[in-house]
Structure formats: C-alpha cells, structure tokens
C-alpha cells in the first residue's frame, strides 16, 4: 500500500485532472519569450541568401541554361569547328574514318578500299594518291558533290 497516495484520491476523473496538470508549471513569460526566439530564427532563415536564391525562378532557369550549355551545346560546337583543315596534315586513317562515318550509308566499302589500294580495316596510304584521284573517287560515289567539296575545302 502506498501511503503517500491514498486510494480514495483517484476516485474521480477530476482528481486526476487536479493532480498532475495543476502541479506542472511553466516559467513566467515562457510562451512570449519562446515566440520571440522562434520568430527571430524564422526571420533569419527568411533573409538567408541561400534560401532567397533557391526561391528565385530566375536562378533555376539560369542554372538549367548553364547545364544545358555545358552538356549539349559546347561539346557540339567544339566538334563542329569550322577551322580550315589541311588534308595533307591529317593522318590517313582519320580521313578514312571520317568518310566512313559520315557517308557510310552511301559509299560502297569495297570501292573505297579499291581506290585506296587496301582492304577495309587495313591502313590506307594516302601518299600514293593525288588530290585529284581522291576527288575523282569521291565524286563518282553517290554522295552529293557539293557536300564533298565543302568538306574538302574546309
């Protein structure tokens, strides 16, 4: 038997109500002070540059634009450079690769190999061919002439 807590004190719900809630105190002015503290924190985070930045749609748009530029536009620009190309200075394999990739759909591989005096996959020696011979070969192929000249001149 708990002497400090007589049985008959718990007979009514009202007793329960009185017993604990009444004994719990809150420091004087606690809620007012807490409100001030909380509001200061909220106001600070409201003014924080980072928070403001995230909330500006322009920031998001700019970030997206930079990302798109970085991922798609710049690499393509570097690849599509219009700097004049000196064919003689290019390695033969690079030229063959280029033609192969760009015009494979219209060139007959064997014809190309014949013209180069090699079989596909073998290293081609361009030194043995004059520029005219190369152009003659290419103009005989189904590739549109203007494109070939444009590519060659570039």
């Amino acid at each position: 038997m708990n002497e400090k807590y007589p049985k008959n004190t718990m007979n009514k719900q009202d007793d329960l109500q009185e017993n604990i809630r009444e004994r719990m105190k809150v420091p004087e002015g606690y809620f007012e002070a807490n409100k001030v503290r909380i509001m200061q924190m909220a106001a600070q985070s409201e003014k924080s540059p980072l928070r403001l930045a995230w909330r500006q749609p322009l920031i998001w748009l700019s970030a997206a634009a930079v990302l798109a530029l970085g991922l798609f536009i710049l690499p393509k620009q570097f690849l599509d450079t219009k700097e004049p190309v000196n064919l003689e200075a290019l390695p033969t394999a690079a030229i063959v690769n280029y033609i192969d990739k760009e015009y494979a759909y219209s060139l007959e591989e064997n014809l190309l190999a014949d013209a180069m005096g090699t079989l596909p996959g073998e290293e081609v020696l361009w030194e043995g061919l004059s520029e005219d011979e190369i152009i003659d070969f290419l103009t005989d192929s189904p590739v549109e002439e203007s494109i070939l000249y444009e590519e060659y001149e570039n």
Partner: protein
Amino acid sequence: MEEDQIITLIRSDRTRLRGYELLVDTYQERLYWHIRGILGNHDDTNDVLQNTLIKVWKGLTSFRGESRLYTWLYRIASNEAFTFLQREKRKPGTVTEEKLIYQKLDSDPYFDGNEAMIRLWQAIDKLPEKQKEVFRLKYFEEMKYQDMSELLSTSVGALKASYHHAVQKIKEFLQED
C-alpha cells in the same frame, strides 16, 4: 476562422512570416502541453517544442491543406517527442524507463508534485499506446472528443471507451502498492 486565415497567409511568400507568427500565437501553447504530456519535464519539452516549430517553419511550403492544420502540427510534435524519448532511452547508462521518468520529473523545477504524482505519471506511461494518446489529449490538452475524433480518425464512442479504460487502469496501477 483563424486556421483559414493562417493557411491563406502561409501560402504566399510575402505573408508567410506573418502567417507563421499567427500560427505560433495560436498553437504553441497547445503543442507545449501535448509535448509535455509525453515528456513530463519542462526543459525537454522546451527543446522539443523548438525543434517542432522550426520543422513547421521549414515545412510550411509543403503543407497542402489536405488535413487540418493542427493535425499536421500534432503529428510533427508527436514525432519529435517520441524521437526524443527514443534517443534518451538509448543513451548509455540510461536507467529503466520508469526510473527515467521518475528522475526527470523529480529534478524538474517546474514540477512541484510529490512522489505520488510521479507514480501517477508512471501509471499513464504504462497504458497501451492508443489509450495513452487519448488520455493525454483529454488530460493535458483538454481536447473535446469531437476534435479528438477528427485528429485520430476514431469514433467518439471508441475514444470515450478508451479514456474510460485508461482511467480504470491508472487507478488499478496506483492501488497495486
């Protein structure tokens, strides 16, 4: 209605801070008693209330108004309080839950109850979760059954029964010794 006014204010960037201020004014005391009903002592309640209100501020933009505002606040506060309790229990060297409650209440300068009061607190803490929740809402927050019904999605009849059982169990617990 105050709740509608708060929701309208917090939905706009321009007035969100004002809406939040109104929210703190309206609900911080209720939230305090809800948390204190779980934790018992003032200092812990103060910490958890602050964390709760900060979380509420950070999450204001995600409040869609699908539930009542207080329901949303109540859930955040409950989560914070129970997470806090779990952390306390896991601390190395922590005594049993009963003793922890006893120590916390006994050392709380804002609790002037005697040992018997602490024993009552322990009795509440021993209740099954649902009864405990109902008892706390009625006892500490003095919430009406109708509001409780909305908050807990339970019928008023079931809530009354839960409260009745809770009171009976508390009496039995206290009469055991």
